Structures are given as structure tokens and as C-alpha cells.
């Protein structure tokens, strides 16, 4: 997602750079391209108007036209405004944090808090209420939050307050059981429901209020840290059902009220978010289905009308596919500056420090085996779809727009290594014709594929060995050469040519100017 925007901003930069001087109308003209791109990204047109006006005003105020680097200057302004639009000012976040620290009751501090994660109140339980339109992904997100909290040692109760949609209760129950059994962390995950209260559409409006109250009571008795209320999806124009949400909010006093929004939503996002916010004073937003190729303009709209922070984004169907939202990073991503921080965090989740150090040592000695490589590959793939990951690397997002980044190729590599014997994995150089034939057959690949893998693996280990002793700067240089030669990882099937190149934003801008 957002590739298109990155491209546009790069275009804006180009338009405004390399000119002797620029006029206000040059700025406005460039902003028209930005407007189109934002519209295509489903950003609400009201939001766009405000945004563009701000950028133009800022540009005039800062006398961009007289600046020697007008392009750079404007990108800076756009970036700052984008961060603000996505996450509120840093000052606001700080203020909220201070309030909480001073002991201001959480519910009062919350609307301002842009701190990541889910706050915790004492005495518990912390009450989290989920709401949103039908099909936005509330139930799945409940499960993800539960997994997120469990991992952090916080016990969770999932309470089924969607009494309307057939089998919604069963869905949440299954999800709760999955989190309890399959996801890491020591804390308990429990489930609360009153199956006898389930009714057909429109027949049980209001009943959910009591269910929520009793769930919270049960959580208190069980000493649960956080209870998450999964409410039924509803239309913002359904007065009765919106009233039900208000009753829950009034009687249960949730500490966090999350609005769950489908990231693929179009212009209407502004209408529904506004209505939910008016009734409930939403204090956090969760955007789902970010693993689609939506450009996600709804994020900007929803943030704009509610002022509530975007807390999490959902990036897959698995229950651990949730990420904390960071405005800075997202804005960087929009501008094609990549999101290295997220990437590193993801990597840390998959590979432990000791494991990393052990590998580092092996690499330095040139002892990396196919086995290690397979382990790395698997860890990489647990981090998410390759294209999503590569999109986080600076400069890659835009370059990758049309590239074939194919997870299938990685399947192939995995299959080939899986078909190798222990000995072959340790010493790939022993792979001769007959072994190659066997591996190809076993993995359903061609013999050329196997020899390619072996050759490139050989080059990769040689280069990494050399690199182990280098300074950081020469490492970067080596990696660049690696890309240029299309050898090593850059040339492994599945990595589009040169796609792993890391070029600093500055470098890139310099290049464009020429």
C-alpha cells in the first residue's frame, strides 16, 4: 500500500527541485498531484482540503520559495503534517503520559494518550470495548489483542456480546481457545458467554448490556487483568443499536473504547467514524486488513474526525498478525522513507539475541550451513509476506511497486533444502549430478534451480565471511556491490534484482536531482 503516494511525493520533489526559483503557484500546482494521489488512496476529500491548505500555508510561511532546497523543504513539511494527521502531535502524547503519571484517572487521560499498547488500570480489570461496522474485523481483532496481552503476561477474558450474528459467539469461543492453546505467554485466556441470550436480528437489542456487566463482574472475581467486550457489528445509522452501545458504555464504563475500521474503506469512513465517535467518544482506533494492497487513506480520515489515536493495525489472518501503530513510521512509509524500525522489531520477535549472536559467529568463520540458512528463511517468512517486509526497507517501497516479489520462490528454496540430506546441508559442495537429480525430484524443482541455489549460497557465505570483519561503512559498500553484481541474496530466486539494495533517502534524492 501507499506505494503510489510515495511515488507522487517523489514526483513533487522532482518538480520543485532543480529549478532556479519557484513560485507559490508552483507549490500549488505540485499539490494538485498530491490531491489526486490522496483521492486515489481513499483519503476523504475534506481531509485532503485541510491537509493541502496546511502544507501550502506552511510553505509560504517558511518561505520555501526562497529556499535553496525547495523540494526537500516541502517534503519536510508534508511529512510533518502527515505525522500530525496520523498521530497527533508529540506534545499531546507527552501531555497525556504526564497526566497518567500524575495519577489522573485513566479514563480522563486516555483520550489524549498516544502511547502504544493497551493501558492498564489498577485495581483491574481493565475494560476494553470493541465497536464498529459489520464485517470490519472485530472478533478476529479481539483474538489478536488477547494474544498481544497474553504475550505480555496479562490475563484476558474475551466476552461475547454479539448476540445477533449467527455463530458469532462460537467464533469468539474458538478464537479464545486458539489463543489459550497456541500462542506464547504465561497468562490465562478465558471466555465468557451467555449462549441462551442469543437471538435473531433485532430481537435482542439491549440484552448485550447485561451480558457485558456480568462479564466484567466475572472477570473481577477471577482476577483477570483485562476484559475485552466483542460487540455486534452495527450501522452507524441504526439508532437502536447505537443506543445499545451507549448503554454499555454508560453502565460498564470501559477504560478503552476501540473503533475497528476496515483499512479498505472508502470515503464513507468519515461518516461512520464521526457517528461512532459522537455516541461513544472513541479513544482508540484499530485498522484491519492492512495486508491488502489498500493505500489506506481511511486511516487519515478516521484519525481526522475522531482525533483518537490509531493504536494497532491488523496485518494478517493469524492471531499474532497485529502491530502497534506508529505515526512517524507510517508517514515515513508514505513518503517512501521505509520503516526500518518496524522491520528490526519484527526480526527481534523471531530471532533471539543469543541465536543472532551464534549465527554472527558462524558467519564470521564462514561456517554458515544450508541448515542455518533454512532457519533464517523460516524466521523471515514468519515475519510476514515478503513484499510487506521489503516495503519497510527505505527506498524499496516505490522501487518494488511492479516487481515480482514472489513468496512462491521461497517455497521452492525451502523445498529444495528440505530435500537435502544432513550432510548436503552442511557441505553443499558435495552435491553432484546424481544428488542434484534426487533433490530436484524430491522438491519438484528443476536441476538448474538446485545448482543455482548451491552456487549462490556459496557466494553468499564467501561474502558474508568477508563482511564480518569490515566496518559498517564498508559493509554498506559491499552490500551495494552485491546488489550490482546480482550475486548473493540479491540474485537468489525470489529477490527481484537489486531489490534488497538499501539507499539512503538523501542518496536517492541526490540521484533524482541529476
Amino acid at each position, binding site marked *: 500500500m501507499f506505494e503510489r503516494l510515495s511515488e507522487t511525493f517523489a514526483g513533487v520533489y522532482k518538480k520543485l527541485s532543480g529549478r532556479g526559483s519557484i513560485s507559490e503557484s508552483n507549490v500549488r500546482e505540485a499539490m494538485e498531484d498530491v490531491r489526486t494521489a490522496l483521492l486515489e488512496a481513499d483519503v476523504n476529500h475534506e481531509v485532503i482540503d485541510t491537509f493541502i491548505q496546511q502544507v501550502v500555508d506552511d510553505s509560504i510561511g517558511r518561505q520555501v520559495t526562497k529556499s535553496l532546497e525547495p523540494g526537500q523543504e516541502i517534503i519536510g513539511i508534508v511529512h510533518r503534517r502527515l505525522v500530525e494527521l496520523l498521530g497527533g502531535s508529540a506534545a499531546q502524547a507527552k501531555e497525556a503520559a504526564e497526566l497518567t503519571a500524575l495519577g489522573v484517572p485513566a479514563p480522563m487521560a486516555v483520550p489524549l494518550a498516544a502511547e502504544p499498547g493497551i493501558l492498564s488500570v489498577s485495581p483491574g480489570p481493565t475494560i476494553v470495548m470493541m465497536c464498529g461496522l459489520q464485517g470490519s474485523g472485530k472478533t478476529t481483532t479481539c483474538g489478536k489483542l488477547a494474544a498481544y496481552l497474553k504475550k505480555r503476561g496479562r490475563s484476558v477474558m474475551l466476552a461475547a456480546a454479539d448476540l445477533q450474528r449467527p455463530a*458469532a*459467539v462460537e467464533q469468539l469461543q474458538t478464537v479464545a481457545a486458539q489463543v489459550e492453546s497456541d500462542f506464547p505467554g504465561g497468562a490465562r485466556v478465558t471466555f465468557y458467554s451467555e449462549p441462551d441470550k442469543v437471538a435473531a436480528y433485532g430481537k435482542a437489542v439491549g440484552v448485550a448490556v447485561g451480558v457485558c456487566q456480568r462479564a466484567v463482574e466475572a472477570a473481577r472475581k477471577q482476577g483477570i487483568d483485562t476484559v475485552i467486550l466483542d460487540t455486534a457489528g452495527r450501522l452507524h*445509522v441504526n439508532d437502536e443499536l447505537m443506543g445499545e452501545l451507549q448503554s454499555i458504555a454508560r453502565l460498564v464504563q470501559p477504560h478503552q473504547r476501540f473503533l475497528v475500521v476496515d483499512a479498505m474503506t472508502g470515503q464513507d*469512513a468519515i*461518516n461512520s467514524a464521526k457517528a461512532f465517535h459522537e455516541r461513544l467518544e472513541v479513544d482508540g482506533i484499530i485498522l484491519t486488513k492492512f495486508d491488502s494492497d489498500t493505500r489506506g487513506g481511511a486511516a487519515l480520515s478516521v484519525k481526522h474526525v475522531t482525533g483518537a489515536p490509531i493504536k494497532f493495525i491488523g496485518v494478517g489472518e493469524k492471531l499474532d498478525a497485529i502491530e502497534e501503530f506508529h505515526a512517524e513510521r507510517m508517514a515515513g512509509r508514505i513518503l517512501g522513507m521505509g520503516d526500518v524500525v518496524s522491520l528490526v522489531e519484527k526480526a527481534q520477535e523471531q530471532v533471539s539475541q543469543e541465536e543472532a549472536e551464534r549465527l554472527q559467529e558462524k558467519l564470521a568463520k564462514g561456517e554458515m550451513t544450508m541448515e542455518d540458512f533454512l532457519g533464517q528463511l523460516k524466521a523471515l517468512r514468519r515475519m510476514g509476506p515478503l513484499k510487506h517486509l521489503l516495503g519497510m526497507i527505505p527506498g524499496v517501497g516505490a522501487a518494488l*511497486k511492479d516487481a515480482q516479489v514472489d513468496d512462491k520462490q521461497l517455497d521452492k528454496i525451502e523445498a529444495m533444502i528440505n530435500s537435502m540430506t544432513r550432510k548436503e546441508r552442511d557441505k553443499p559442495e558435495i552435491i553432484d549430478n546424481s544428488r542434484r537429480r534426487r533433490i530436484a525430484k524430491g522438491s519438484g524443482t528443476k536441476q538448474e534451480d538446485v545448482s543455482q541455489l548451491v552456487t549462490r549460497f556459496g557466494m553468499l557465505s564467501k561474502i558474508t565471511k568477508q563482511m564480518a570483519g569490515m566496518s559498517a561503512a564498508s559493509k554498506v559498500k559491499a552490500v551495494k556491490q552485491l546488489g550490482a553484481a546480482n550475486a548473493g541474496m540479491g540474485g537468489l530466486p525470489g529477490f527481484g534484482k537489486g531489490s534488497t539494495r538499501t539507499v539512503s533517502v538523501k542518496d536517492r534524492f541526490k540521484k533524482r536531482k541529476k
Partner: protein
Amino acid sequence: MALFKSIVSRLRKGLEKTREVLTSGLGDLLRGRRLDEALIQEIRTKLLQADVGIQTTNRLVEGISADYKSGKLSKGEDVLEYLKREMAALWPSQDRSLRIATSGPTVIMVTGVNGAGKTTSIAKLCSLLRGQGKTVLLAACDTFRAGAVRQLEIWSERLGVDVVKGQQGGDPAAVAFDAASAALARHVDFLIVDTAGRLHTQDPLMRQLTKIRSVLAKKIPGAPHEVLLVLDATAGQNAMRQAVEFSKALGGESPAGVPAPANGKGTPGSESAGGVTGIFLSKLDGTAKGGIVVAIKEATDIPVKFVGVGETPDDVEVFDPESFVEAMFG
């Protein structure tokens, strides 16, 4: 045509209830006004607001602009008529009926992204067909999402039809195979196949869809006769990609299908729709206008066949372009 009466009245009722009218229509904007450049800009905004998309909007607005300059259009009312005509022309009347098998069971495969409204829409189709005295069998091929099989089962119990199901986590293609066999054995008129929600960017899942399709085709020649893509009316520009990618994955024997337009923009014209034969536009009872189907029709020629206007099996209408445009601007 009284088809969209219920949407319009529902919408009104809903809107009256909210404290603030969330959207004001193009009708109000245009009635009694003289056309000028400023008004043309306002029309443009309204179209964009309805998710029609920038390309189609530009095309429509350029048309209005040209007719305004040549003096053919001068009153707001005329513009409304112009827009209605332009859009209604996109959906010629004959191509919206369900495709029916010449003999044996008609197989309808229902697809879409997560939460689009597939299962509910199946209950609606089922109810429509039952109302016409047809026999229906359901296939629960969403073996992935927790509770999905049970959800379809509850609908089948309420509607009095049978459902073929497998294990949660099992192979959906195997369920499709069993269901097709059962449909043949029981001589039902219709087999409706529910599938798991999937994002069009998830390659392996899209391939699974291709597999389900070919299993059905092997068992029942010509099946699936109808492939419906359920599209949420709130969907933004990304829905264009959904239409293209689902069509590609469901393209049957020649998956060449639709060439993918760059950057989610469709190229106007009428390329083959590939695998998807119709759109079921769900959740039109909210404030979203579902304008993206206009752009999709322009780019891919996939017709809208049904609209969903609520959560019960009765909340379904056969798509009617005039009423759709009316509701979009009303």
C-alpha cells in the same frame, strides 16, 4: 420500478434518527440551480464522495463541462438527468439475471474479501430462490474462519435447506466435491457454495479458489455457472483490485482473464470479465453509496446483480441502475 423503495425509505428512516444528516445528496445540490463552473466542481466532489473514483469522475465531469460550454446543459435538473442516463447506460437491462444451467443443478459460487457479507448474502439468495419455489443446497467451504460453518448452518436451519459441510480446517475443495455430488444425486435446482474470505493479495488462498472452481467444473459440466463477488458498499478504490484479482483467480480454463490495470486504475473499455460473473453489493443500507461499482463496470464489465440492504434474508433487492443512481444522488 419499486425495487429500491425499501432502500430509500430505510435510508431516510435511518438518517432521520441520527442527530445530523450525514450526507446531503446531489439532488438537493442541483435542483433549481443554474449550471456554472463552481457547480461543476461541486458535482465532482459529490461523485468522488460516493467512491466513484477519480478516473470515472473526471470522465463524467468532462462530459458535463463540454455540454455546458456548448450550451446543451444549463440547468441543474438537466445535469441530474444527464448523470442518470450516463450511468444507467452502463448496465444494460439484459445482463443482470442469474446464469442458469441448461440442465442439472445451477452452481453459484460466492466469493469476496473477509467480512464482505458472503454468508449473509447466501442466506439472501437462498431466500429469494426458495421464494420462487426452487430447491437449494448449500456448501460450507469456509473451513477456515472460526464459526463460519456453524454460521451457514444456522441460516440453513432457519431457511429450511440442507448444507454439506466438512471439518473446520479441512480441505474446502473436498467439501465442494462432496457438495457437487450431493447436488447431482438429490437433483436440486441450485447449489450455492460459500467460500472463506480472503484478500486478493494472498496468493495461496487465491489459488485455493481456482482449485475449488475446477473441482466444481469437473463434477458438474459448466459449473460454476455464476460466480458472485460480494463487495461491501463502503469499499474504497481498492475494490477495483478485488474485482480484477478475483476474476483472474476464477478465470476457469483460460486464466488470462483481465489484464491487471496499473495502480488500481481501470482502463475504460470492456475487457472480458474473466471469472467473476456478477457483483453482490452488500451493506447498501448504510450511508455508503457503493460508487466503486460504477468504475468497476467501466473497467471490467462485471455487472452488479443484487444489492444487500440489511442483515436478514429478506433484505435483498435485484439491482436496478436507475434506482441505484437515484439513491446515490438522492
